[in-house]
């Protein structure tokens, strides 16, 4: 994995900028997981990840260990996501938006099952957004990207045991919120 990233970076720096798309394809979901985990809003998360990739492209020659692109990029996303969160908090409160109602990012059909599915989806997303940021990011990195505890710890500058206990706490919180939302 690291040698592949080193090859990509060296080729980009040697004059093949189109190869950057391979890194975008490889890490855009990871970036999205980190950004959404911190901010809790997919629209803002997408902007943050785009900005992070643009910064990475412009600053690629400063990357001292090309094989470590993944963690360097994760750090960029984290930094920009925290900036975005700070800016958001200083502005007037804006309702958290996810996607247009009735919409996933694919096609929808106006059938009852689809409505139910979307309702469940919004409840789960709302519950995830309401988690404290440090718990939300581990849940998102685990369930959106399937990262190991060790990888999550590395990205969040934490320890494996802290990741495990945050995941446990977050999952308990989500279960209680979702059980309450099912109650009549």
């Amino acid at each position: 994995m690291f040698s592949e990233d080193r090859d990509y970076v060296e080729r980009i720096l040697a004059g093949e900028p189109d190869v950057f798309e391979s890194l975008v394809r490889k890490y855009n979901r990871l970036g999205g997981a980190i950004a959404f985990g911190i901010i809790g809003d997919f629209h803002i998360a997408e902007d943050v990840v785009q900005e992070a990739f643009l910064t990475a492209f412009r600053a690629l020659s400063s990357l001292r260990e090309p094989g470590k692109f993944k963690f360097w990029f994760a750090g960029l996303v984290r930094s920009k996501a925290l900036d975005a969160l700070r800016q958001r908090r200083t502005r007037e409160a804006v309702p958290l938006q996810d996607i247009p109602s009735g919409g996933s990012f694919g096609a929808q059909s106006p059938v009852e099952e689809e409505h139910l599915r979307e309702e469940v989806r919004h409840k789960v997303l709302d519950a995830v957004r309401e988690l404290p940021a440090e718990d939300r990011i581990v849940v998102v990195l685990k369930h959106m990207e399937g990262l190991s505890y060790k990888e999550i710890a590395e990205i969040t500058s934490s320890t494996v045991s802290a990741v495990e206990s945050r995941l446990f706490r977050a999952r308990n919180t989500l279960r209680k919120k979702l059980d309450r939302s099912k109650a009549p």
Partner: protein
Amino acid sequence: MRPVSCSEVDHSLWRYIDRELSASELSAISTHLKGCEQCRAQYHEWAREASQYRRVLDETPFGEAFVGRLRHRMRDEGLFASSRRSPLEALSFHRRRVRRIATVAAMLFLIPVVVVVGILSNLRDPVQLGNFTAEGAEGGLVTFTRHGAPSDAPGGRRLKQGNYAAGDGFEVPEGVVVTLKLGSPSRREDSILILSGPASFVIDREATKVNFNAHLGSGVLRADVARRALVEPFAITTENARVRVLGTEFELSALDSRTVLTVRKGIVAFQSIKALPGKGSIEVTRDKSYVVDKDAMQPMPLEETAGRQDPAPEAPPPRPASVPSHAGEATPPPRPASPEASPAPVPTRPPVEASPKTPRPEPDLDTPVDR
């Protein structure tokens, strides 16, 4: 392997679902879940939760659509227009690369231990180990657990083929045969592992091509292991035994709390899980079969246990005709596709049918796993 209690399972259940346990720990909990309704209900509830979170978080604005949007944006901003670096930038880059190569060469010359440690630690990074194919009854699908995902959560992957890596698991239904190829760490031939369903097999999370460990929870495994160096261990554990292989062909079955090993070629070290370190290991040679029963301290020759009530011996499953041979033969003979007669009685499942019994509509298949 000692049984685990309900409180131990409760303490480890999320790590089990997240595949953060070793192969033997996974197996111990699997065994407990099969026999404990309460813990199993808890597992199913939590696995459903995990699956629900994964499904919801899977629908995001990221993926290929994002890649396309960013590509357009970068082109609009002219970032790709300046594709060629200026001669000065190119020279600077090349100078830095030369300096880097010189630094690495100096390290290799002056600090060889550091380089070896670095190479070994890179080799321990989880890597793709090889690929697998499934064939047999009912479409020949195997349930494949990606490292980190619950095995039987709704929407789990049922595949005919794909790539696998450390931490991945296979649940093979009855009548299905899965062939795994394990890449060689030293550019020699691949090793071949054949699982005959019903079987449960999990690759150790820390496994690499150099240091391969896996756990056969149940079922029959046939292995043709390419010659490996002493520093390239290859081991399979079951509930009550451990097999360590240097380069050979063998059949291992883990059924009804008995582990039976039959060696076809080469030599295999066979040991009870309960044996003390460095003790109780038997070297099983060609055409010999040994068994480790539940709670046994060491393997016994299978003939000595013939008086017990064993399942009726059945022919071993057919092996794909393309499986190469390794142990010391300069020109490997072609392997017969039909089931081979076993030199010693080995309790196995009924012969696997190579084609589905009755035609059924093909289920929707996930795209093959590719890392």
